[in-house]
């Protein structure tokens, strides 16, 4: 699964740490998601989308191998 968290973060000009604090997860979690090493749960995906005022589909996208 692809995501645009890094881009959204750049648009808002906030660090991984800031985003992690606002959503209530660890910095490692944000880092792992951006690196594509971790697929978040639905709850976390919804929280991230809500934080950026977007739909989940705008941030997360399926890839061919999914």
């Amino acid at each position: 699964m692809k995501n645009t968290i890094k881009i959204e973060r750049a648009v808002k000009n906030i660090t991984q740490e800031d985003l992690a604090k606002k959503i209530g997860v660890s910095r490692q979690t944000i880092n792992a998601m951006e690196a594509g090493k971790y697929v978040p749960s639905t709850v976390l995906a919804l929280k991230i989308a809500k934080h950026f005022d977007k739909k989940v589909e705008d941030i997360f996208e399926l890839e061919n191998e999914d």
Partner: protein
Amino acid sequence: MNTLKLFPNCFKKTGWLIFIPSLILGILSLTDILNLPEVSLPVFYNSGFPLSNEENGLFKNTEIAIFPNLFGILIIIGGVLVGFSKEKIEDEYISSLRLKSVFWSLIVTYSIILILFLTIFGSLFFTAMILIMFLPLVLYVFRFNYLLLKK
């Protein structure tokens, strides 16, 4: 979001303070560097050793290598506190790291045990088994913290 039952985060530091020294001392006690005395103490159950003339049974006195026993106990207590205390922020990704680390440590441990079963016979096998008892916990603690710190 999180479902694992763990100790509070404050226990982790205490755990490290117990775990690391007792692990080092435990390893040293296997060598001849430390000359540790044996003490005669009453124990809950003494099964005795072959060719020993000690009394078997409940609440009998026996010679105990007290320090290696103590280090073993402390490695377990410290390891459990480190491995099973919450991180500052314990979330779903951290839980997935825990699962990965437990899985990794079990695979490594049982691979080693399998090799030992196939290669080592005699009393060395039993010595190795005593040490292997600590391996899953020790490997889990180090693997999990390595994954946490790794970028």
